[in-house]
């Protein structure tokens, strides 16, 4: 029953939008349709991601004050936490996300993944709504060059490179840790480094084994994220 609900609410609408885009965009290229749907999803989720990038930005601007508090109350952790909470409240920054929204988004992303996977084959046309024309066959050669139903090395490498730049952008703006490095901070720097290299390698390895269509989706998402981050972070420097 759960699968039926999932199919009707998430999978089927997304699949229909993809095929609809495939039908109306000239050229009959599923790659273009995937890019269009990705942009559409990103636009839909824009308020969400804007909020998280913005809070990241605010937090980074607040970092000197946080470091100061950390230095000031380094012997009294309880007091430090209290003072930090006060600082967050005063500057109206919420440093925390929460678990539930993340959990709710998860099925959505699984559905997107499955739609792109099945969109690359000429199957499951029976799931189409009556007002979406049946294309009978899906052309899965992107721009006449890349077969999106097979793993593609170039797309995987591009996605990995994009991932690298995106993570770098996200973590770069942290001020250098000047204090003589407590264990905690060293740990954090190491974690950041790990993020920077592990994620892109992970992306490339996964990209080698997934159909090119999914790697293309990943690449487009990353590029849009870079664009978004650039845009939001830039606004800050203009304002000050």
């Amino acid at each position, binding site marked *: 029953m759960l699968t039926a609900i999932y199919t009707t609410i998430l999978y089927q609408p997304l699949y229909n939008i993809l095929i609809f885009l495939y039908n109306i965009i000239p050229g009959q290229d599923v790659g273009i349709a995937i890019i269009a749907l990705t942009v559409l999803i990103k636009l839909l989720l824009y308020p969400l991601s804007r909020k998280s990038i913005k809070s990241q930005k605010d937090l980074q601007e607040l970092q000197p004050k946080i470091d100061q508090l950390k230095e000031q109350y380094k012997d009294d952790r309880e007091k430090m936490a209290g003072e930090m909470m006060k600082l967050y409240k005063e500057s109206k920054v919420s440093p925390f996300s*929460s678990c539930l929204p993340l959990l709710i988004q998860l099925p959505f992303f699984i559905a997107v993944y499955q739609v792109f996977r099945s969109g690359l084959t000429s199957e499951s046309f029976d799931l189409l709504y009556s007002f979406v024309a049946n294309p009978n066959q899906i052309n899965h050669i992107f721009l006449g060059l890349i077969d999106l139903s097979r793993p593609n090395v170039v797309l995987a490498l591009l996605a990995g490179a994009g991932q690298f730049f995106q993570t770098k952008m*996200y973590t770069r703006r942290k001020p250098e840790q000047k204090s003589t490095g407590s264990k905690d901070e060293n740990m*954090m720097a190491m*974690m950041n480094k*790990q*993020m920077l290299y592990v994620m892109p390698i992970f992306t490339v390895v996964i990209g080698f084994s997934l159909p090119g269509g999914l790697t293309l989706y990943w690449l487009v998402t990353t590029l849009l994220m870079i664009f978004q981050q650039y845009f939001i972070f830039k606004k800050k420097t203009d304002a000050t």
Partner: protein
Amino acid sequence: MKRPCLIYCEKRGHYRAMSFFTLQIRNLVLNSIKIYQKTLSFDHGVFSGLFPNGFCRYYPSCSEYTYQAIVKYGVLKGGLKGAWRLIRCNPLSKGGHDAI
């Protein structure tokens, strides 16, 4: 065949017997939480570098809370407590210290 296994029960303060099967399920669930924490978790895993101040608005994090709840109350009751914590962990809640 039933093989009784001993497990320390914090609530009662002594060891109690648990069927082999129950213990296997309990360990499977607890180990899955540990694996999640080591990999995907934004609070404990590979991506924790992205959130230097922690991701979850509660302390301990939702996964850690659930883990401790299952150790203390068992898979069913502890799991329910964990699920309720996940629901509470939304943008409207205040967060803070919330130990099991």
